[in-house]
């Protein structure tokens, strides 16, 4: 299949939306939805056609299976949240700023289609930083004092953090000069090639610095501090994009650096570091979910938790771990988008973020409430939904791994804690009788469609593991050096 053409379409669609929003300033939501409807099948085609890694456009772009997988996750979230944006943004206060919103929204999607494709490590760094720049404006879009505070913390913490990854990149480049001479191009395949021959200390330092730097962006605890603020204060469709799509883009970088240390034969310690971050993320997620009062903050901590699960999957490694982590990326993307759509509707309906004040949800949002509840059950990892499968796979990888059995046990305990904590909030929201009926707008058709799609997808992914996935994940596991 013609990959360059697919890449062009994938990039052109959101950029056309940006131009349309800024110039025409009418029907932006629909154009944006159209762009998302184009991007999703294109990303699937790109994934299908990524049999062997390809380098395109003067060595600038690199499309391999795992990169295409992340791109597809981005496209899924972009599609679902573009539906929802039509409904959600209708209730905003200031209709004159809507063109800016859609321009930024589509541009944000474009940056996330660009970063995972970057071939040079420095350009990948720039791509990730670009996602921050664009999304800062989206986080602060509502211009309340709280959302400006969240935007400020977001850009300062993430820019500071990601500069650590730049230091790591410089050290890795320096390490490469011992192998290839003073001038060369540091791209992903070069890194894999020179990793075994560069000075050990530089590879180790480079990996650790990159892990911490991109870990800030991926929301791994204890570098997650920007995440609850940004996710809770952004408009709900943006929260979904931040949580479902952006975090994966940063995780991709971590996985590629991890693969380089594997190829260089550094053994288990880089995996141990990643596992440690994963466990801390799960603990932080569990504790803050239990005692959370803000609805979207709770979902944000759930993102920290799920990034921890993905980190554990790649950390445990092996075929099972990689399978679980990749499957979890997709499941989490779909499920978290579903949750934020529900949360956005609830926030509009009740006019508050406070869980305490949301009572008798089934009466307040007939129908939608049950889809949302299904999502809540799914996100805690209960069967028969997709996350059950992926978490089980990660769990088994830990159980079978050498010396990671106690981590697997801890993982299981934390999952149970989160299950209880998360669903307890939902029990209270659904069962407590309402004191005053909510007066906000009811969810419309454009809320129904993405929620139905998401629940259906999660059910399908839970009941049936597509055989093609096995083949793809096998290839990815092999390329990451995890296949036994």
């Amino acid at each position, binding site marked *: 299949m013609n990959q360059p053409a697919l890449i062009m379409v994938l990039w052109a669609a959101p950029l056309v939306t940006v131009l349309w929003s800024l110039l025409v300033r009418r029907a932006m939501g629909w154009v944006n939805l159209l762009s998302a409807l184009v991007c999703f099948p294109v990303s699937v085609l790109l994934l299908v056609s990524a049999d062997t890694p390809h380098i395109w456009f003067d060595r600038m772009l690199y499309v391999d299976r795992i990169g295409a997988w992340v791109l597809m996750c981005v496209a899924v979230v972009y599609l679902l949240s573009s539906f929802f944006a039509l409904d959600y943004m209708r209730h905003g206060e200031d209709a004159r700023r809507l063109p800016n919103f859609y321009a930024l929204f589509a541009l944000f999607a474009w940056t996330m289609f660009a970063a995972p494709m970057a071939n040079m490590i420095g350009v990948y760094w720039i791509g990730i930083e670009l996602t921050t720049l664009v999304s800062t404006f989206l986080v602060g879009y509502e211009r309340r004092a709280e959302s400006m505070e969240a935007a400020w913390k977001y850009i*300062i913490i993430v820019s500071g953090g990601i500069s650590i990854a730049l230091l790591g990149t410089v050290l890795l480049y320096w390490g490469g000069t011992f192998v290839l001479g003073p001038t060369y191009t540091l791209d992903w395949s070069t890194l894999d090639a020179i990793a075994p021959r560069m000075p050990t200390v530089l590879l180790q330092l480079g990996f650790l610095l990159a892990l911490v730097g991109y870990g800030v962006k991926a929301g791994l605890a204890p570098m997650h501090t920007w995440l609850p603020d940004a996710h809770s204060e952004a408009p709900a469709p943006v929260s979904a994009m931040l949580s479902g799509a952006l975090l994966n883009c940063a995780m991709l970088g971590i996985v590629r650096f991890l693969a380089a240390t594997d190829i260089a034969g550094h053994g288990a310690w880089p995996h141990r570091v990643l596992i440690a971050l994963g466990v801390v993320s799960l603990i932080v997620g569990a504790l803050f979910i239990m005692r959370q009062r803000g609805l979207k903050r709770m979902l944000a901590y759930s993102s920290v938790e799920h990034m921890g699960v993905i980190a554990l999957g790649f950390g445990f490694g092996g075929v099972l771990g990689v399978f679980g982590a990749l499957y979890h990326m997709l499941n989490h993307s779909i499920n978290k988008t579903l949750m934020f759509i529900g949360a956005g509707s609830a926030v509009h309906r009740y006019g508050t973020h406070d869980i305490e004040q949301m009572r008798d949800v089934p009466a307040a949002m007939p129908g939608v409430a049950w889809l949302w509840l299904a999502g809540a059950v799914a996100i805690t990892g209960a069967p028969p939904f997709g996350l059950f499968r992926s978490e089980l796979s990660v769990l088994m990888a830990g159980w079978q791994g050498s010396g990671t059995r106690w981590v697997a046990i801890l993982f299981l305990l934390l999952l149970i804690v989160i299950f209880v904590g998360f669903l307890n909030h939902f029990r209270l929201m659904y069962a407590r009788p309402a004191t005053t009926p909510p007066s906000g707008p009811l969810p419309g058709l454009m809320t129904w469609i993405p929620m139905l799609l998401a629940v259906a997808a999660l059910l399908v992914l839970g009941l049936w593991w597509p055989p093609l996935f096995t083949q793809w994940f096998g290839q990815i596991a092999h390329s990451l050096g995890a296949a036994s």
Partner: protein
Amino acid sequence: MPMVALHFTPLLASIFSLIVIGALVLAFVMLGSRWLRDYMVAFAVQSWLIAILSALMGWAGGYTELYFVAALTALFRGLVLPLMLLWVLKRLHVNRELHEIVQPATALVLGAVLVIFAVIVAYRIGHAVNIETRVVLLALTVMLAIKLIGFLMLTIRREAVSSILGILMLENGIFLGSQILVPGMPLMIELVLLFDLLVAVTCFAVLVRYLMASVGATGSHALQKLVG
């Protein structure tokens, strides 16, 4: 070993060392002052030093792209950014840090501790990769030290403008080190340079909007609504 740094003449090596140490001293100037205008001047001079270093490196190593990098550094980081920050300061009517978490004197001591840590790390790395060239070790030390001091600034200073400068200083450290360690990767540095300008502009935009939303406060102590 194909390291360009190994072929420095003694004179060049001395000049490089001088510039690198000058940049470190300027980092301490920022750390020891509480006047925002001082930060700005120190940052501008630090950027100019880095620009001179790039140009010299380009001349000594035959990397013509580095002249371009030098011009960009001098223009953007040495001129445009400080002027923009001064403009913001005038609009905000803030002259100095009002709420110090740590006294400047204490901050200087902390900075010194960080430099010692950076020296230890740099010498260990140098030992592990078999490099005894003074300039390279010095560059590595100062790169790590400026980075750490930048994070220290971010931690102990509360004015929003100081945070922006802290972030910019983090990257100054990396530029400085990378000129000497990896002069062969300029394309990326150019991109990053331009990119930083974007970051800073974004910061300003957010800042100004924040001020519109909640009048009068530019210290991060006012940003404590979102917790838990």
